[in-house]
Protein backbone atom coordinates (compact mmCIF):
# COMPACT_ATOMS: atom_id res chain seq x y z
CA UNK A 1 0.00 0.00 0.00
CA UNK A 2 1.27 3.44 -0.73
CA UNK A 3 2.11 5.83 2.06
CA UNK A 4 1.34 8.99 0.12
CA UNK A 5 -1.20 9.14 -2.64
CA UNK A 6 -1.51 12.41 -4.55
CA UNK A 7 -4.17 12.67 -7.21
CA UNK A 8 -4.86 15.46 -9.64
CA UNK A 9 -3.43 18.24 -7.49
CA UNK A 10 -4.19 21.69 -8.85
CA UNK A 11 -3.39 25.04 -7.34
CA UNK A 12 -3.84 28.54 -8.62
CA UNK A 13 -3.13 31.75 -6.80
CA UNK A 14 -5.32 34.71 -7.45
CA UNK A 15 -3.32 37.64 -8.61
CA UNK A 16 -4.96 40.93 -7.99
CA UNK A 17 -4.36 43.89 -10.22
CA UNK A 18 -6.07 46.99 -9.03
CA UNK A 19 -6.88 49.80 -11.35
CA UNK A 20 -8.29 52.96 -9.86
CA UNK A 21 -11.05 54.53 -11.84
CA UNK A 22 -13.15 57.55 -11.13
CA UNK A 23 -15.20 56.83 -8.00
CA UNK A 24 -14.93 53.15 -8.49
CA UNK A 25 -12.35 50.55 -8.05
CA UNK A 26 -12.09 48.02 -10.76
CA UNK A 27 -10.48 44.84 -9.69
CA UNK A 28 -9.12 42.68 -12.37
CA UNK A 29 -8.44 39.17 -11.28
CA UNK A 30 -6.04 36.97 -13.04
CA UNK A 31 -5.39 33.40 -12.13
CA UNK A 32 -1.86 32.28 -11.76
CA UNK A 33 -1.90 28.53 -12.10
CA UNK A 34 1.00 26.84 -10.41
CA UNK A 35 0.09 23.14 -10.22
CA UNK A 36 -1.80 21.48 -13.01
CA UNK A 37 -2.85 17.99 -12.01
CA UNK A 38 0.06 16.49 -10.12
CA UNK A 39 -0.38 12.78 -9.56
CA UNK A 40 2.00 10.33 -7.90
CA UNK A 41 2.02 7.67 -5.26
CA UNK A 42 4.85 6.81 -2.93
CA UNK A 43 5.21 3.54 -0.99
CA UNK A 44 6.31 3.58 2.65
CA UNK A 45 10.06 3.79 3.19
CA UNK A 46 10.79 5.47 -0.15
CA UNK A 47 13.32 8.23 -0.55
CA UNK A 48 11.53 10.32 -3.16
CA UNK A 49 13.32 13.25 -4.78
CA UNK A 50 11.52 16.00 -6.63
CA UNK A 51 13.31 18.03 -9.25
CA UNK A 52 12.03 20.78 -11.50
CA UNK A 53 12.82 24.26 -12.74
CA UNK A 54 12.86 27.14 -10.25
CA UNK A 55 9.44 28.62 -9.61
CA UNK A 56 7.61 25.60 -11.00
CA UNK A 57 5.74 25.02 -7.75
CA UNK A 58 7.77 22.47 -5.82
CA UNK A 59 7.47 24.33 -2.52
CA UNK A 60 3.79 24.95 -3.20
CA UNK A 61 3.21 21.25 -3.75
CA UNK A 62 5.07 20.49 -0.52
CA UNK A 63 3.03 22.90 1.54
CA UNK A 64 -0.10 21.26 0.19
CA UNK A 65 1.02 17.67 0.68
CA UNK A 66 2.20 18.41 4.23
CA UNK A 67 -1.11 20.10 5.02
CA UNK A 68 -0.14 23.76 5.41
CA UNK A 69 -2.09 24.91 2.39
CA UNK A 70 -5.22 23.71 0.66
CA UNK A 71 -5.20 22.71 -3.00
CA UNK A 72 -7.63 24.27 -5.47
CA UNK A 73 -8.61 20.75 -6.40
CA UNK A 74 -7.27 17.23 -6.08
CA UNK A 75 -6.61 15.03 -3.08
CA UNK A 76 -3.71 14.11 -0.85
CA UNK A 77 -4.01 10.86 1.07
CA UNK A 78 -1.54 9.81 3.74
CA UNK A 79 -2.10 6.25 4.94
CA UNK A 80 -5.40 6.40 3.11
CA UNK A 81 -6.56 9.43 5.13
CA UNK A 82 -7.16 12.81 3.61
CA UNK A 83 -4.70 15.41 4.86
CA UNK A 84 -6.46 18.30 6.56
CA UNK A 85 -3.63 19.95 8.43
CA UNK A 86 -0.03 19.52 9.50
CA UNK A 87 0.22 16.51 11.77
CA UNK A 88 2.69 15.04 14.20
CA UNK A 89 3.31 12.05 11.94
CA UNK A 90 5.20 14.18 9.48
CA UNK A 91 7.81 16.85 9.96
CA UNK A 92 8.94 19.52 7.52
CA UNK A 93 12.32 21.06 6.99
CA UNK A 94 11.49 24.19 5.06
CA UNK A 95 13.44 25.92 2.35
CA UNK A 96 14.09 28.87 4.67
CA UNK A 97 15.87 28.63 8.01
CA UNK A 98 13.36 27.16 10.42
CA UNK A 99 15.33 26.92 13.67
CA UNK A 100 13.91 29.20 16.34
CA UNK A 101 16.64 31.80 16.81
CA UNK A 102 15.57 32.47 20.40
CA UNK A 103 16.33 28.88 21.43
CA UNK A 104 19.72 27.21 21.58
CA UNK A 105 20.40 24.28 19.27
CA UNK A 106 19.63 21.87 22.11
CA UNK A 107 16.41 23.66 23.02
CA UNK A 108 15.38 23.60 19.38
CA UNK A 109 15.98 19.89 19.16
CA UNK A 110 14.25 19.19 22.48
CA UNK A 111 11.20 20.99 21.09
CA UNK A 112 10.42 17.92 19.03
CA UNK A 113 10.04 15.73 22.11
CA UNK A 114 6.85 15.48 24.03
CA UNK A 115 7.11 15.95 27.76
CA UNK A 116 9.19 13.30 29.45
CA UNK A 117 11.60 13.51 32.37
CA UNK A 118 14.24 16.15 31.83
CA UNK A 119 17.23 13.82 32.16
CA UNK A 120 15.80 11.62 29.42
CA UNK A 121 15.38 14.63 27.18
CA UNK A 122 18.93 15.86 27.78
CA UNK A 123 20.33 12.43 27.00
CA UNK A 124 18.31 12.04 23.84
CA UNK A 125 19.12 15.53 22.61
CA UNK A 126 22.80 14.80 23.16
CA UNK A 127 22.46 11.60 21.09
CA UNK A 128 20.88 13.43 18.19
CA UNK A 129 23.40 16.25 18.34
CA UNK A 130 26.06 13.59 18.01
CA UNK A 131 24.21 11.92 15.15
CA UNK A 132 24.41 15.07 13.05
CA UNK A 133 27.94 15.86 14.21
CA UNK A 134 27.10 18.76 16.49
CA UNK A 135 28.13 17.40 19.89
CA UNK A 136 29.36 20.26 22.02
CA UNK A 137 27.27 22.83 20.15
CA UNK A 138 24.01 22.24 22.00
CA UNK A 139 24.37 25.48 23.93
CA UNK A 140 24.91 27.60 20.85
CA UNK A 141 22.23 29.83 19.42
CA UNK A 142 21.47 29.42 15.69
CA UNK A 143 23.19 32.69 14.82
CA UNK A 144 26.32 31.31 16.45
CA UNK A 145 26.33 28.31 14.10
CA UNK A 146 27.36 28.12 10.46
CA UNK A 147 24.77 27.63 7.74
CA UNK A 148 25.55 23.93 7.42
CA UNK A 149 25.43 23.41 11.17
CA UNK A 150 22.03 25.08 11.31
CA UNK A 151 20.71 22.76 8.61
CA UNK A 152 22.03 19.75 10.51
CA UNK A 153 20.46 20.94 13.75
CA UNK A 154 17.21 21.30 11.88
CA UNK A 155 17.49 17.78 10.52
CA UNK A 156 18.16 16.55 14.07
CA UNK A 157 15.10 18.39 15.33
CA UNK A 158 13.01 16.67 12.68
CA UNK A 159 14.51 13.22 13.27
CA UNK A 160 14.09 13.23 17.04
CA UNK A 161 10.33 13.26 16.64
CA UNK A 162 10.69 9.92 14.88
CA UNK A 163 8.35 10.97 12.06
CA UNK A 164 6.81 8.58 9.61
CA UNK A 165 7.35 11.09 6.82
CA UNK A 166 10.09 13.65 6.52
CA UNK A 167 9.57 16.55 4.14
CA UNK A 168 12.65 18.45 3.07
CA UNK A 169 12.48 21.47 0.77
CA UNK A 170 15.88 22.15 -0.78
CA UNK A 171 17.46 21.71 2.64
CA UNK A 172 21.01 22.00 1.40
CA UNK A 173 20.43 24.45 -1.43
CA UNK A 174 22.28 27.29 0.25
CA UNK A 175 25.31 25.28 1.27
CA UNK A 176 28.68 25.08 -0.40
CA UNK A 177 29.52 22.15 -2.63
CA UNK A 178 31.62 20.08 -0.23
CA UNK A 179 29.23 20.50 2.69
CA UNK A 180 26.43 19.47 0.39
CA UNK A 181 28.27 16.27 -0.48
CA UNK A 182 28.73 15.54 3.23
CA UNK A 183 25.06 16.17 3.93
CA UNK A 184 24.15 13.87 1.08
CA UNK A 185 26.12 11.08 2.70
CA UNK A 186 24.44 11.78 6.04
CA UNK A 187 21.02 11.62 4.43
CA UNK A 188 21.79 8.18 3.00
CA UNK A 189 22.79 7.00 6.47
CA UNK A 190 19.75 8.56 8.07
CA UNK A 191 17.43 6.90 5.60
CA UNK A 192 19.01 3.53 6.21
CA UNK A 193 18.98 3.97 9.99
CA UNK A 194 15.43 5.26 10.40
CA UNK A 195 12.45 3.61 8.85
CA UNK A 196 10.79 6.61 7.24
CA UNK A 197 9.46 7.93 3.99
CA UNK A 198 11.35 10.97 2.79
CA UNK A 199 10.13 13.56 0.32
CA UNK A 200 13.06 15.63 -0.75
CA UNK A 201 13.03 18.63 -3.06
CA UNK A 202 16.21 19.61 -4.77
CA UNK A 203 17.32 21.54 -7.82
CA UNK A 204 20.52 19.54 -7.94
CA UNK A 205 20.05 16.61 -10.36
CA UNK A 206 23.14 14.84 -9.01
CA UNK A 207 21.77 15.05 -5.49
CA UNK A 208 18.55 13.45 -6.65
CA UNK A 209 20.41 10.71 -8.49
CA UNK A 210 22.60 10.01 -5.46
CA UNK A 211 19.78 9.89 -2.94
CA UNK A 212 16.52 8.88 -4.54
CA UNK A 213 14.75 5.58 -4.83
CA UNK A 214 12.40 7.66 -6.91
CA UNK A 215 12.95 10.80 -8.89
CA UNK A 216 9.87 12.75 -9.81
CA UNK A 217 10.53 15.43 -12.35
CA UNK A 218 8.10 18.32 -12.59
CA UNK A 219 7.59 20.39 -15.71
CA UNK A 220 7.68 24.15 -15.90
CA UNK A 221 4.70 26.09 -14.51
CA UNK A 222 1.86 25.14 -14.57
CA UNK A 223 3.59 21.99 -13.53
CA UNK A 224 2.74 18.34 -13.97
CA UNK A 225 4.76 15.23 -13.41
CA UNK A 226 7.01 15.15 -16.45
CA UNK A 227 8.85 11.98 -15.60
CA UNK A 228 8.65 9.44 -12.79
CA UNK A 229 11.84 7.42 -12.40
CA UNK A 230 12.46 4.40 -10.17
CA UNK A 231 15.99 3.65 -9.05
CA UNK A 232 17.25 0.71 -7.05
CA UNK A 233 20.99 1.14 -7.33
CA UNK A 234 22.88 0.46 -4.09
CA UNK A 235 24.64 3.28 -2.23
CA UNK A 236 27.14 4.81 -2.65
CA UNK A 237 26.35 5.49 -6.28
CA UNK A 238 28.78 6.38 -9.01
CA UNK A 239 27.20 8.84 -11.40
CA UNK A 240 30.10 9.09 -13.81
CA UNK A 241 29.48 5.86 -15.68
CA UNK A 242 26.81 3.34 -16.51
CA UNK A 243 23.10 3.91 -16.66
CA UNK A 244 23.09 6.64 -14.01
CA UNK A 245 25.20 8.88 -16.19
CA UNK A 246 22.91 8.17 -19.13
CA UNK A 247 19.95 8.93 -16.92
CA UNK A 248 21.47 12.22 -15.90
CA UNK A 249 21.95 13.22 -19.52
CA UNK A 250 18.39 12.26 -20.26
CA UNK A 251 17.08 14.37 -17.36
CA UNK A 252 19.07 17.38 -18.53
CA UNK A 253 17.81 16.81 -22.03
CA UNK A 254 14.19 16.68 -20.91
CA UNK A 255 14.70 19.85 -18.90
CA UNK A 256 15.58 21.55 -22.13
CA UNK A 257 19.33 21.61 -21.66
CA UNK A 258 20.60 20.22 -24.93
CA UNK A 259 24.26 20.52 -24.12
CA UNK A 260 25.77 17.27 -22.84
CA UNK A 261 27.11 18.22 -19.42
Amino acid at each position, binding site marked *: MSKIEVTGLRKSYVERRRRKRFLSQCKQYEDCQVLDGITFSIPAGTFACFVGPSGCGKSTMFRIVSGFERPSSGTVLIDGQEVTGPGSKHVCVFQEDGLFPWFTAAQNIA*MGLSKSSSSDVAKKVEDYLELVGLSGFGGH*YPHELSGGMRRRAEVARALITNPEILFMDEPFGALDFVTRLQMREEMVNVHQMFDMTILFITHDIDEALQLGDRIIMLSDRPSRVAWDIRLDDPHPRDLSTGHLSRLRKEIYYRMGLHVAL
Partner: protein
Amino acid sequence: MAVKRYGVLSLILLLLVAWQAVTSFFRVPEFVFPRPLSVARALLEMLSNGELYRNSIASLFRVTWGFYLAVATAIPFGLFLGRQHQLRAILNPLIQFLRPISPLAWIPMALMWFGIGDKPAIFLIFLSSFFPLIVFTTSSVLNIRTTYLRVAENFGFKGLRLYMRVILPAALPDIITALRITLGTAWLVIVAAEMIAVKSGLGYLIIDARNSLRMDMVVAGMVVIGAIGLVLDNIIRLLERMPSVEWSRVRR
Protein backbone atom coordinates in the same frame (compact mmCIF):
# COMPACT_ATOMS: atom_id res chain seq x y z
CA MET B 1 34.81 51.49 24.00
CA ALA B 2 37.32 53.75 25.70
CA VAL B 3 37.46 55.94 22.60
CA LYS B 4 33.69 56.25 22.64
CA ARG B 5 33.59 57.16 26.33
CA TYR B 6 36.32 59.80 26.02
CA GLY B 7 34.65 61.12 22.89
CA VAL B 8 31.33 61.60 24.69
CA LEU B 9 33.00 63.20 27.72
CA SER B 10 35.00 65.63 25.63
CA LEU B 11 31.93 66.60 23.63
CA ILE B 12 30.04 67.41 26.83
CA LEU B 13 33.00 69.38 28.14
CA LEU B 14 33.30 71.28 24.88
CA LEU B 15 29.62 72.21 24.90
CA LEU B 16 29.82 73.40 28.53
CA VAL B 17 32.84 75.57 27.80
CA ALA B 18 31.20 77.01 24.67
CA TRP B 19 28.01 77.69 26.62
CA GLN B 20 29.90 79.50 29.39
CA ALA B 21 32.01 81.42 26.87
CA VAL B 22 29.13 82.56 24.69
CA THR B 23 26.87 83.60 27.58
CA SER B 24 29.69 85.54 29.29
CA PHE B 25 31.00 87.14 26.08
CA PHE B 26 27.63 88.48 24.98
CA ARG B 27 26.64 89.26 28.58
CA VAL B 28 23.42 87.28 28.27
CA PRO B 29 21.40 88.03 31.43
CA GLU B 30 21.05 85.11 33.87
CA PHE B 31 17.24 85.16 33.59
CA VAL B 32 17.40 84.70 29.81
CA PHE B 33 19.99 81.94 29.70
CA PRO B 34 21.79 81.04 32.94
CA ARG B 35 25.46 80.05 32.81
CA PRO B 36 26.64 76.50 33.41
CA LEU B 37 28.28 77.49 36.67
CA SER B 38 25.10 78.94 38.15
CA VAL B 39 23.18 75.90 36.95
CA ALA B 40 25.74 73.72 38.72
CA ARG B 41 25.31 75.83 41.85
CA ALA B 42 21.52 75.44 41.64
CA LEU B 43 21.94 71.69 41.19
CA LEU B 44 24.10 71.49 44.31
CA GLU B 45 21.65 73.60 46.26
CA MET B 46 18.69 71.42 45.32
CA LEU B 47 20.69 68.30 45.97
CA SER B 48 21.63 69.41 49.49
CA ASN B 49 18.15 70.54 50.52
CA GLY B 50 16.68 67.24 49.22
CA GLU B 51 14.29 68.90 46.78
CA LEU B 52 15.80 67.24 43.76
CA TYR B 53 15.67 63.82 45.31
CA ARG B 54 12.08 64.21 46.51
CA ASN B 55 10.76 65.46 43.20
CA SER B 56 12.66 62.94 41.10
CA ILE B 57 11.29 60.11 43.21
CA ALA B 58 7.79 61.52 42.88
CA SER B 59 8.08 61.60 39.06
CA LEU B 60 9.73 58.21 38.82
CA PHE B 61 7.10 56.67 41.08
CA ARG B 62 4.31 57.82 38.75
CA VAL B 63 6.10 56.84 35.58
CA THR B 64 7.01 53.43 36.92
CA TRP B 65 3.47 52.60 37.96
CA GLY B 66 1.81 53.98 34.87
CA PHE B 67 4.31 52.35 32.58
CA TYR B 68 4.21 48.95 34.28
CA LEU B 69 0.44 48.93 34.27
CA ALA B 70 0.51 49.66 30.55
CA VAL B 71 3.16 47.00 29.88
CA ALA B 72 1.29 44.41 31.91
CA THR B 73 -1.94 44.97 30.02
CA ALA B 74 -0.95 46.18 26.55
CA ILE B 75 1.63 43.52 25.74
CA PRO B 76 -0.54 40.46 26.43
CA PHE B 77 -3.44 42.18 24.72
CA GLY B 78 -1.30 43.18 21.74
CA LEU B 79 0.07 39.64 21.38
CA PHE B 80 -3.46 38.30 21.42
CA LEU B 81 -4.70 40.91 18.97
CA GLY B 82 -1.87 40.10 16.59
CA ARG B 83 -3.31 36.61 16.20
CA GLN B 84 -7.02 37.48 16.11
CA HIS B 85 -7.60 38.91 12.70
CA GLN B 86 -11.30 39.62 13.01
CA LEU B 87 -11.11 41.16 16.46
CA ARG B 88 -8.23 43.30 15.26
CA ALA B 89 -10.21 44.54 12.29
CA ILE B 90 -12.96 45.60 14.69
CA LEU B 91 -10.81 47.21 17.38
CA ASN B 92 -8.18 48.83 15.19
CA PRO B 93 -10.20 51.90 14.22
CA LEU B 94 -11.01 52.54 17.88
CA ILE B 95 -7.37 52.23 18.91
CA GLN B 96 -6.23 54.45 16.06
CA PHE B 97 -8.87 56.98 17.07
CA LEU B 98 -7.79 57.12 20.71
CA ARG B 99 -4.07 56.98 20.07
CA PRO B 100 -3.50 60.45 18.62
CA ILE B 101 -5.35 62.15 21.49
CA SER B 102 -2.60 63.61 23.62
CA PRO B 103 -2.59 62.26 27.18
CA LEU B 104 -2.55 65.90 28.28
CA ALA B 105 -6.01 66.34 26.80
CA TRP B 106 -7.15 63.79 29.33
CA ILE B 107 -6.00 65.91 32.29
CA PRO B 108 -9.42 67.41 33.07
CA MET B 109 -11.05 64.00 32.98
CA ALA B 110 -8.24 62.44 34.98
CA LEU B 111 -8.59 65.05 37.72
CA MET B 112 -12.33 64.56 37.73
CA TRP B 113 -12.10 60.80 38.07
CA PHE B 114 -9.11 60.40 40.34
CA GLY B 115 -8.93 63.63 42.32
CA ILE B 116 -5.61 65.23 43.18
CA GLY B 117 -2.38 63.29 43.76
CA ASP B 118 -0.51 60.47 42.13
CA LYS B 119 -3.45 58.63 40.69
CA PRO B 120 -4.38 60.99 37.83
CA ALA B 121 -0.71 61.27 36.87
CA ILE B 122 -0.34 57.48 36.83
CA PHE B 123 -3.45 57.27 34.72
CA LEU B 124 -2.03 59.74 32.20
CA ILE B 125 1.23 57.83 31.94
CA PHE B 126 -0.73 54.64 31.50
CA LEU B 127 -2.66 56.22 28.63
CA SER B 128 0.46 57.57 26.99
CA SER B 129 2.03 54.09 26.95
CA PHE B 130 -0.96 51.83 26.52
CA PHE B 131 -2.04 52.63 22.95
CA PRO B 132 1.41 52.82 21.36
CA LEU B 133 2.40 49.58 23.09
CA ILE B 134 -0.67 47.78 21.76
CA VAL B 135 -0.01 49.01 18.24
CA PHE B 136 3.70 48.14 18.34
CA THR B 137 3.11 44.71 19.88
CA THR B 138 0.40 43.81 17.41
CA SER B 139 2.48 44.80 14.45
CA SER B 140 5.50 42.92 15.75
CA VAL B 141 3.35 39.78 15.96
CA LEU B 142 2.22 40.37 12.39
CA ASN B 143 5.84 40.62 11.34
CA ILE B 144 6.79 37.18 12.63
CA ARG B 145 8.15 35.06 9.81
CA THR B 146 5.60 32.58 8.47
CA THR B 147 8.18 29.82 8.59
CA TYR B 148 8.37 30.08 12.39
CA LEU B 149 4.60 29.86 12.66
CA ARG B 150 4.53 26.86 10.34
CA VAL B 151 7.22 25.13 12.37
CA ALA B 152 5.28 25.86 15.55
CA GLU B 153 2.16 24.41 13.99
CA ASN B 154 4.10 21.40 12.77
CA PHE B 155 5.40 20.74 16.28
CA GLY B 156 1.96 21.07 17.78
CA PHE B 157 2.40 24.32 19.73
CA LYS B 158 -0.97 25.56 20.89
CA GLY B 159 -2.55 27.95 23.37
CA LEU B 160 -0.36 29.38 26.10
CA ARG B 161 2.62 27.31 25.02
CA LEU B 162 2.44 28.83 21.54
CA TYR B 163 2.39 32.33 23.02
CA MET B 164 5.16 31.80 25.55
CA ARG B 165 7.54 29.80 23.41
CA VAL B 166 7.00 31.15 19.92
CA ILE B 167 4.91 34.32 19.58
CA LEU B 168 6.40 36.28 22.50
CA PRO B 169 10.06 35.37 21.89
CA ALA B 170 9.70 36.02 18.14
CA ALA B 171 8.15 39.43 18.76
CA LEU B 172 10.34 40.33 21.74
CA PRO B 173 13.11 42.24 19.92
CA ASP B 174 10.55 44.57 18.36
CA ILE B 175 8.69 44.83 21.65
CA ILE B 176 11.86 45.92 23.45
CA THR B 177 12.32 48.68 20.89
CA ALA B 178 8.72 49.68 21.50
CA LEU B 179 9.37 49.75 25.26
CA ARG B 180 12.28 52.12 24.74
CA ILE B 181 10.20 54.48 22.65
CA THR B 182 7.21 54.31 24.97
CA LEU B 183 9.16 54.85 28.16
CA GLY B 184 10.72 57.90 26.52
CA THR B 185 7.26 59.23 25.73
CA ALA B 186 6.04 58.48 29.25
CA TRP B 187 8.92 60.49 30.62
CA LEU B 188 8.03 63.36 28.28
CA VAL B 189 4.42 63.27 29.38
CA ILE B 190 5.03 63.13 33.13
CA VAL B 191 6.88 66.43 33.16
CA ALA B 192 4.11 68.14 31.24
CA ALA B 193 1.43 66.55 33.40
CA GLU B 194 3.14 67.63 36.60
CA MET B 195 3.28 71.21 35.41
CA ILE B 196 -0.49 71.25 35.32
CA ALA B 197 -1.96 68.66 37.59
CA VAL B 198 0.11 68.18 40.73
CA LYS B 199 2.29 69.87 43.32
CA SER B 200 5.34 67.66 43.23
CA GLY B 201 7.70 66.07 40.73
CA LEU B 202 10.24 67.44 38.31
CA GLY B 203 7.64 69.17 36.16
CA TYR B 204 6.31 70.99 39.21
CA LEU B 205 9.86 71.84 40.26
CA ILE B 206 10.44 73.60 36.95
CA ILE B 207 7.18 75.54 37.03
CA ASP B 208 7.78 76.50 40.66
CA ALA B 209 11.30 77.72 39.86
CA ARG B 210 10.00 79.77 36.97
CA ASN B 211 7.37 81.40 39.19
CA SER B 212 10.15 82.57 41.50
CA LEU B 213 12.24 83.61 38.44
CA ARG B 214 14.99 81.10 39.21
CA MET B 215 16.08 80.24 35.65
CA ASP B 216 19.16 78.50 36.96
CA MET B 217 16.89 76.07 38.78
CA VAL B 218 14.73 75.65 35.67
CA VAL B 219 17.74 74.60 33.60
CA ALA B 220 19.01 72.42 36.46
CA GLY B 221 15.64 70.65 36.41
CA MET B 222 15.94 70.15 32.66
CA VAL B 223 19.39 68.66 33.09
CA VAL B 224 18.09 66.20 35.66
CA ILE B 225 15.16 65.21 33.41
CA GLY B 226 17.52 64.50 30.55
CA ALA B 227 19.88 62.52 32.77
CA ILE B 228 17.11 60.37 34.23
CA GLY B 229 15.71 59.77 30.72
CA LEU B 230 19.11 58.54 29.64
CA VAL B 231 19.32 56.17 32.60
CA LEU B 232 15.81 54.81 31.96
CA ASP B 233 16.66 54.12 28.32
CA ASN B 234 19.80 52.30 29.33
CA ILE B 235 17.88 50.16 31.79
CA ILE B 236 15.55 48.99 29.00
CA ARG B 237 18.51 48.43 26.73
CA LEU B 238 19.81 45.89 29.22
CA LEU B 239 16.96 43.69 27.98
CA GLU B 240 18.51 43.70 24.53
CA ARG B 241 21.47 41.83 25.95
CA MET B 242 19.41 38.78 26.85
CA PRO B 243 20.85 35.84 24.91
CA SER B 244 17.44 34.90 23.55
CA VAL B 245 17.06 38.35 21.98
CA GLU B 246 20.53 38.76 20.53
CA TRP B 247 19.59 37.08 17.24
CA SER B 248 17.66 40.09 16.03
CA ARG B 249 20.80 42.21 16.01
CA VAL B 250 22.81 39.62 14.12
CA ARG B 251 21.60 40.12 10.60
CA ARG B 252 22.59 37.24 8.46
